[in-house]
């Protein structure tokens, strides 16, 4: 055990903090629609993200139908297929995962977990959501526009994204996609500044940075990264929109398209790739870091044990966040950039594996000598560790520049990133919802439905993406509408593809069980009480459940200890809330 001296937390007196700065709703509209309460905004963000996520789910079904059963479904032609994969990817990465982790979980959890009444700029916070909704509407408008949405792949590489050989390249598709991204980034910036300033300035007394739950650390670091990374995508989107609408040549060189010499000249397609991945790689961690933080808290709470190596966990989050800004070109090993970059980017990429591995060890070591309750959040946390370890390890193949050469642009890459930034973070999303739903609604989610949901999703997702690596190892390229008669692809690959497609349909269907559970439990779920998991963090210590606007009663909580006082020797219970003053006879092993 470490011995850290007692901090000033013991002597700070309680004090009333008036909530005069909050805008209290005066009507139904300002309470439920144009609300400035971060908790309502969080629910608005989450419902919107899940709604658009359902579209992405249906698109994944259509993609798998085509790949598993090519030629059977005449309504899926090549144009549609490329539109489906593009929209599926963009929705999942930006409009579902980023929006849900930061706008959803960030809004709900940051003020509650740091002991604030609300975000520091509630009005900008509200605007953030409405701009996000507008971005989603513009994105969806692509489906109804002439020519349909863009089919350029979610990476939107020019010149292809702007040419007539790509669906939406010369129609509305690419314009709507770029516009939607621009709106999303403006909206996100308003929310993101809120999350950062609230964590830095809005913490309750006694809540030092090194006492914050890792959930807050993860979301905070991810938000700082997003504020630095999204501007790169923003300028790329603006320049590309200029190329498309005004005929500029930022990314368009002199090209001959379908026998016709285009007017563009002197632009650099590879500059777009650098801008895109300068955003795109941090984006992976913008999704992953909140998941890392949340899963740490799920494991700790449900194993009734402090997170192992808290300080190392915080530093690992910060180091991963910083390093992720100098690894972007590992997405471009075979892009034709100067090949000498490969030495640098392979080295930085593999270095990032070390802090990441430390996080995995510490999660597993938290289980060691714990008191593991196999609740739904814990099951999803275990599912996360399995899929994240698997997906992280295949990252060591693709990050190691020369190994990437044969594997890049094959299904191996698709399998890798789905496992590591699709399945793994989504496991955490589900775990987090099973964990915090009782606080949000006052009711528990149904246990039996939850277990069905977990087992089908976990085993099913593994059955989809583990074998897919081997499809890529054979050499099957990604983004192929159909494989046709390719000599080196044996018939068994088609059988495997069929198996993967069936698994994908089943896993998708299991999500309907989850949706049903969410709605059903809202009315019929078991009453949860204020702290059903007997957790230490502040959000479980609110005077009301669900928490009222302003979160706390007259007095803000005072924090006396870190977030992980589980099973402290000598304590009467196996958890001590963060706002519990020091007790006689309980050893103080950690502040």
């Amino acid at each position: 055990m470490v011995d850290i001296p007692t901090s000033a937390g013991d002597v700070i007196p309680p004090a009333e903090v008036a909530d005069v700065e909050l805008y209290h709703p005066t009507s139904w509209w300002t309470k439920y629609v144009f609300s400035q309460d971060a908790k309502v905004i969080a629910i608005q963000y989450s419902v919107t993200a899940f709604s658009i996520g359902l579209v992405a789910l249906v698109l994944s079904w259509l993609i798998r139908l085509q790949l598993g059963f090519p030629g059977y479904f005449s309504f899926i032609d090549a144009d549609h297929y490329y539109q489906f994969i593009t929209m599926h990817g963009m929705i999942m990465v930006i409009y579902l995962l980023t929006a849900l982790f930061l706008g959803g979980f960030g809004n709900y959890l940051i003020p509650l977990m740091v002991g604030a009444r609300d975000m520091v700029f509630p009005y900008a916070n509200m605007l953030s959501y409405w701009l996000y909704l507008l971005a989603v509407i513009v994105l969806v408008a692509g489906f109804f526009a002439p020519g349909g949405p863009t089919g350029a792949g979610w990476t939107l590489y020019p010149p292809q994204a702007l040419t007539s050989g790509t669906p939406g390249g010369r129609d509305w598709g690419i314009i709507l996609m770029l516009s939607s991204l621009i709106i999303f980034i403006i909206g996100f910036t308003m929310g993101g500044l809120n999350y950062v300033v609230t964590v830095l300035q809005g913490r309750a007394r006694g809540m030092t940075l090194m006492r914050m739950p890792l959930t807050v650390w993860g979301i905070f670091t991810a938000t700082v990264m997003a504020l630095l990374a999204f501007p790169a995508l923003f300028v790329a989107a603006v320049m590309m929109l200029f190329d498309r609408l005004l005929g500029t040549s930022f990314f368009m060189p002199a090209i001959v398209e379908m026998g016709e010499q285009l007017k563009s000249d002197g632009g650099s397609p590879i500059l777009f790739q650098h801008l895109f991945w300068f955003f795109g790689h941090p984006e992976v961690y913008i999704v992953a870091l909140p998941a890392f933080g949340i899963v740490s808290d799920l494991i700790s709470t449900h194993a009734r044990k402090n997170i192992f190596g808290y300080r190392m966990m915080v530093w690992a989050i910060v180091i991963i966040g910083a390093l992720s800004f100098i690894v972007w070109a590992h997405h471009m090993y075979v892009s034709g950039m100067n090949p000498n970059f490969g030495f640098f980017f392979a080295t930085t990429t593999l270095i990032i594996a070390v802090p990441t591995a430390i996080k995995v060890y510490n999660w597993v070591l938290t289980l060691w000598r714990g008191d593991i309750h196999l609740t739904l959040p814990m099951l999803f946390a275990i599912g996360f560790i399995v899929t994240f370890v698997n997906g992280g390890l295949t990252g060591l193949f693709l990050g190691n520049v020369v190994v990437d050469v044969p594997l890049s642009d094959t299904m191996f890459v698709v399998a890798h990133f789905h496992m590591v930034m699709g399945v793994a973070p989504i496991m955490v999303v589900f775990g987090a919802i099973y964990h915090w739903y009782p606080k949000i609604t006052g009711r528990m989610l149904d246990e039996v439905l939850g277990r069905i949901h977990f087992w089908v999703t976990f085993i099913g997702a593994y059955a989809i993406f583990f074998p897919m690596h081997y499809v890529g190892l054979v050499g099957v390229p990604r983004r192929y509408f159909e494989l046709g008669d390719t000599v080196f692809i044996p018939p068994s690959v088609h059988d495997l593809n069929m198996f993967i497609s069936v698994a994908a349909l089943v896993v998708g269907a299991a999500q309907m069980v989850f949706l049903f559970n969410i709605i059903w439990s809202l009315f019929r779920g078991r009453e949860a009480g204020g702290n059903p998991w007997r957790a230490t963090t502040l959000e479980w210590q609110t005077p009301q459940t669900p928490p009222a606007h302003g979160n706390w009663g007259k007095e803000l909580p005072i924090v006396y200890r870190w977030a992980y006082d589980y099973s402290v020797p000598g304590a009467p219970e196996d958890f001590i809330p963060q706002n519990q003053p020091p007790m006689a006879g309980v050893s103080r092993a950690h502040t």
Partner: protein
Amino acid sequence: MVVVLVLGLIVIGSVVFHLLSPWWWTPIASNWNYIDNTIIITFWITGIVFVAVISFMAYCIFRFRHRPGNRAAYEPENKRLEWWLAGSTALGVAAMLAPGLVVWNQFVTVPPDAGEIEVVGQQWLWNFRLPGADGKLGRADNRAVTADNPLGVIRNDPAGLDDIIISGAELHLPIGKSVRVHLRSIDVLHDFYVPEFRAKMDMIPGSVTYFWFTPTRTGTFEVLCAELCGVGHPQMRGTVVVDEPDAYQAWLAQQQTFSQLMAAVEPAK
């Protein structure tokens, strides 16, 4: 204890799947067996880590599952264990990175005696250009592309006149001769991808990219495009034939040079 059982099955199942999988890479036809070896090393290291971490987790879940009266230990940190784990991870990473960078150095260093060819991608077919008798490829530019001059070879560059133009037909290469492949595109991004050669690289309109390899096995190989290039992407196929030197020379003799092609076009105008 279903979880422990399932985790065990996942570990065993993944290893068995890997060992028995009929889905494995194509028989290699180039000098890049170093790449295959690096992948094998990576499979071993990552496989051991995967089995160790998941098995240990399954053991913890079994051994420390909740039973009435249980209480977890309280151990916030263990500096020695944490640094020991970080150190051994760094070692494992270095064991994969070092051979990777050595092979990458070979990959980016074209041998001085390598021959040169050019591959030009366009939606959705492959063109090739070989240096003629002078051994040099003439300059080319997308701005010079016309219906008669699909590769945009610059007409007043003497080095280009004897270049051999192969438009939309198969490419032949002699076995055992290293070749530097210059890559160009006249429209969008493409990627010259022959799985059996292992090496691949994107082609970017406005730039010339490259990679090199040595064909080590005769045969006919399918060329695919590995960078999304529009709706015709999956149909963008070509053929590379690796020949014995005699057969290669016989094929070469039948090909047309740039000046022959131009001469065939001019009188018509």
